Each structure stands twice: as C-alpha cells, then as structure tokens.
C-alpha cells in the first residue's frame, strides 16, 4: 500500500491537492486561452526564429565566407553554440533518467518540462552542425552509406563520426522517452475534452491509451529500462562531444580530463536553463504548488555541486599544463588567462567558478530572484567556457605567422539569437498544448508526499 512517509521529509505537493486538483491545474493552460504575456513572448520568439531562417538561408546561399572564420580559426561560434545547446539538454535526461534510478521523487514535478527542454536544445544544437557544414545538402556524408565516391566508407576511428551516432541516438531516445511518458497525460486531456477539435487531436496524440493494469505494468518497466539505458547514454554523449576536441593534437584540447569535465559542465548549464524556464513557467501557469521552493533548492544544490566540479577541472587543467612540461600546452593556458582573449577567460571564471559558490547560502538557494539571476549568469559563463576552449586554443597556431584574431560577423550573432528564438518558440508551444507536469506520475506520490498526507490522519489507518 502507499507507504507512510516521515513528516520530516519535505512536502513535494503543497496546497492540499487531490487527484482531481492535479488534473485541473495541469490541464488548465491547455484548456484556456493564453494570456497577454504568452502572446508577447511567443511573438518575440517567433520573430527571432524567422530571423534565424533568414540568416541561415543567407549563409547557405552565399557560403561560409559570411562568417568571421579564417584559415586559423576554423571553428568558433558555430561549434561553441553547438556544444552549449547540447550541454543544456543534459539536465533533462539527468532529471528523468538518473534521478529515476536514484528514486528522487522531486523529479516528478519537473521531469516533463526538463525533457522538453532537452529535445528543443538538441534540435538547436543539430541546427548548428548542419549550418556549419556550409553545404547542408551533403549533410548525409557522415552517415555510413554505400556511395559512388569509390568504396570509401566513413572512418569509424573518427570522433566526428562517433558524434553523429551519439547525437542522433541521444535525440531519438530522449524523444521516445519523453513521448512515452506523455501518452497517459494526453489521454487525460482527451477524456475531458469538451471541443471536437481537442478530442480529435488528443485522441491521435494519446495513441488510444487506456490505463489498464497490463499497460501500466509495461509502462513502468519501459520507463525503468529506458532510464537505465539513458543514464550511460547521456554520460556518453557529452564525453563523445568532448572527444571531438580531446583526440586532436591542439594544445588546450588534447587532455584526458575533458569527458568528465564536459559532462559536469553540461549538467551545470542544463540545470541553470531549467531554473530559468521553470521560475517563469511556475509563475505564469500557476504551478507553485508543484514546483515548490524545495524543488528550486534541490536544483540549486546540483548547480553548486557541478559548478564546483567544473571549477576543480579548470584548476586541474592549469596544473597539468604546467606539470606536463610541454611548452605549447603551457603557452596555450597562459595565453587563455592573459592573452588577447583574457576577458572571455575571466568572464568564464567569474560566472562558472565564483558565482555558483554563492549557493552555499540557503537564503540565496531559496530566493527566486537570486536563483533566476544566477541561472542566467551560469549560462553566460558556460557559453564563454566553450568559446574560450575553441577560439583561444585555435587562434595561436604553431607557426606565429598564422596567428590571427577572430570576431563574429552579424550573421553568426544572428544565427545564435535565432536559435534562441527557435528554442523558446518550441518551449512556448509546449507550455500551451502539452501537459507541462507529468500528472499521471505525480499522482503516485500524493498519498505520501503532499501537504495533505503530511498533516497525518488522512490515511492513518493504512
């Protein structure tokens, strides 16, 4: 039976909600008209997305020459943005997979929106891979297809090919994991639909789901096994992304610390983005009873932990550069901190190493303004981390005559802003049409972790 949980354990659902209240609260945004703020946000995001189409179209039509890249710096904002977006996606999988394996019930209020964020972030990341190819019509070349260029297959020793497999697996597995969880919730919307159109669409979306005992048994097994295989998957994805750099011979890239350091950084930035999104979502959609200060506090603790791991990794890199005795390696790191891009390096250090340490204070961890502000700071810092790794390592080549500087053109900046538009457009549509909280799963903890259960007496006899 539903177990009795200690009153000392935190309340995960506030406001004495019942099963039906959860249904009402989660379905309300879908069944009512969006307010003025949603429309303003949507119009701004959609405009940025249209801008993305224009600048990507311009890049493809004219060629990569419209970017600020040169012979020495061949990767810059494109790959910075790719790694930044993929990293952001990692928090969603961590919440839905790793926290499920650890039986962390607080994930139930936030897993749906965090997974949605994962899907949209990976779409943005993939868009940078395709646009940085310059010729998107040959984007199928990294796939292992029989071709007529000779019997030349793709090179499976190359991390860039590993990345194709890692990102496509990650995207498609995250998508089915997310969608499978959505099916029972779509059925809730379907069964209470009052308009014909809503009934029609949610009948299609819910795949004819009825919560029979066998269906739920399979559903739970599928969720558990998907969590089990998504856990090594998410850790592998950013490891493989880091190997795009680490297996090369560029000083500043060629380090064995990269995989764990990239994974920690990814979770760090991902949770910051979850905070940014959820602090607004809980307010706008009136979900404060479900996404409580406790949830925000727990996510801030993860930001503190992963931020500290990232800080240690930065210092370790510096120490190892000195300890290696390799002149090029030492120069690469001294140049990062004191060279022409010092401002990028110190922005990264301030945002990623110093700012998360503020979360040792419980007062700041449970302060919405501080959390929102720091979540933006962390995302800026993590963007600079990728910029520093990529551009400062490349811009000082082995031969000093090849030394250059890099600065982005308006096209690159436009594509970045446009990708934010793509991301927020998708998220806003999600918040409007999809159940933003996994209600079917959340209902399982109402008898153990809600404020009503904590008061006792409600089910004292069990």
């Amino acid at each position, binding site marked *: 039976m539903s177990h009795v949980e200690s009153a000392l354990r935190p309340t995960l659902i506030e406001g004495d909600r019942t099963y039906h209240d959860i249904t009402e609260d989660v379905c309300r945004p879908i069944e009512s008209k969006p307010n003025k703020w949603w429309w303003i946000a949507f119009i701004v995001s959609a405009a940025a997305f249209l801008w993305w189409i224009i600048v990507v179209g311009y890049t493809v039509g004219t060629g990569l020459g419209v970017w600020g890249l040169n012979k020495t710096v061949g990767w810059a904002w494109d790959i910075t943005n790719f790694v930044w977006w993929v990293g952001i996606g990692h928090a969603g999988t961590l919440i839905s997979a790793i926290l499920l394996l650890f039986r962390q019930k607080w994930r139930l209020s936030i897993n749906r929106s965090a997974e949605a964020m994962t899907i949209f972030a990976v779409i943005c990341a993939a868009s940078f891979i395709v646009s940085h190819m310059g010729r998107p019509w040959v984007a199928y070349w990294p796939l292992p297809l029989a071709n007529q260029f000779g019997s030349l297959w793709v090179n499976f020793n190359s991390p860039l090919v590993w990345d194709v497999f890692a990102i496509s697996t990650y995207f498609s597995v995250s998508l089915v994991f997310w969608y499978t969880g959505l099916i029972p919730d779509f059925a809730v919307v379907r069964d209470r639909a009052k308009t014909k159109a809503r009934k029609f669409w949610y009948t299609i979306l819910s795949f004819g789901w009825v919560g029979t005992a066998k269906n739920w048994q399979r559903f739970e097994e599928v969720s558990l*096994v998907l969590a089990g295989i998504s856990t090594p998957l998410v850790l592998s994805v950013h490891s493989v992304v880091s190997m795009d750099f680490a297996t090369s011979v560029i000083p500043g890239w060629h380090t064995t610390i990269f995989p764990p350091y990239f994974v920690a950084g990814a979770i760090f930035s991902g949770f910051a983005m979850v905070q940014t999104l959820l602090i607004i979502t809980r307010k706008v959609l009136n979900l404060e009873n479900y996404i409580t200060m406790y949830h925000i506090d727990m996510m801030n603790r993860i930001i503190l932990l992963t931020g500290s791991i990232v800080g240690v990794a930065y210092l370790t890199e510096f120490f190892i550069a000195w300890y290696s005795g390799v002149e090029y390696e030492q120069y690469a790191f001294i140049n990062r901190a004191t060279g022409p891009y010092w401002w990028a390096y110190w922005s990264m250090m301030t945002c990623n190493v110093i700012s998360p340490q503020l979360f040792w204070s419980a007062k700041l961890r449970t302060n919405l303004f501080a959390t929102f502000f720091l979540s933006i700071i962390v995302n800026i810092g993590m963007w600079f981390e990728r910029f520093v790794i990529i551009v400062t390592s490349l811009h000082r080549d082995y031969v000093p005559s090849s030394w250059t500087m890099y600065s982005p053109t308006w096209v690159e900046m436009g594509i970045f802003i446009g990708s934010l538009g793509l991301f927020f457009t998708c998220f806003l549509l999600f918040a409007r049409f999809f159940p933003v909280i996994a209600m079917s799963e959340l209902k399982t903890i109402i008898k153990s972790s809600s404020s009503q259960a904590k008061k006792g007496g409600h089910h004292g006899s069990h």
Partner: protein
Amino acid sequence: MAATKKTVYGIYNDEEILLKAIGNLKGKGIKCVDAISPFPIHGLDQALGLERTRISIACFLYGATGTCLALLMMWYMNIWDWPMDIGGKPSFALFKNMPAFIPVTFEFTVLCAAHGMVITFYLRSKLLPGVEPHVIHHRQADDHFVLTIEGKEENAAAMKSALKETGAVEIKE
C-alpha cells in the same frame, strides 16, 4: 447450453479501496479481469494475478542485436572492404581497432535497445495514432478507478451487489 458471460464494471474513487475490493471479491470467488487507473498502482498486478512483463528481456535482445550489427558494420566497412590508414592509425584487424569502435558500438546498442523496446511496447499494448480508446468512465484517467469483473449471466445481480459492498461509487455494465 453454456451460460453467457457477463461483464460488470465497478467504479471506485480511491486506489486503496480498489485493492481491498479485489481481495474481497476474489475471496467470494468472483473473477477480477482487469482494472483501469489514472496512474500505476503498486501491488495491482499481483492482486489481479498478472504475469511479469517480459519487455525488458526483449530490450536486452534488441540491444544485443545492435551490438552485433554495429561491430559487423564497422568490421566490413573499415577492416574488410576498404581499410584506410589515416594519421598513422591503420585498420588491420577488428580487435586492434576495438578501442576506437567502442563509442559507435555502444550508441548503436542503445539505439536498437530503446527503439526496439518502445516499438514492442506500443504494438503489444496496441498504442498507435488513430486507435480508438475504450473509455468506460469519463474520469478513469483523472481520479476514478474501474474494476472489471466477469461472471455468469444469471449471477449479474449478485456481482453488482458484491461490487457495491466493496465501496464502488458507481456500477456500469
């Protein structure tokens, strides 16, 4: 002449009452066929006597297939058909290249395991776009629980009263 079967649905508004009801009805020799709930209930599959799902075994088999396919593909393309020597790293034998082949092997294993399992789940549970749901109570996905019992036609009245005794808030046929 064989008696025709009669199906009766009892609607409950709490999963704990539902579970107790299943125990009670089984004690009276009434066959509980299925239950519909808005969320997974622990202990329900044992109470109804459902067998364990074998979907995780299927998942393992899909994964193992993926592992083999990935290794076969890389062996054929990079070792057998067209070995390349890139950056002084030749492709002579599968086991010598294994370290470099592990990431793709792993990713492809996960890809096959996850999609194979989910497709199996959808097909076995008949979940596909366009399938008409069998809705017995309009709040069965919200906060109500449907218990399906089966018996002989002539026992219908007894079945209904048995459901009522166990705390069903509504009875449907």
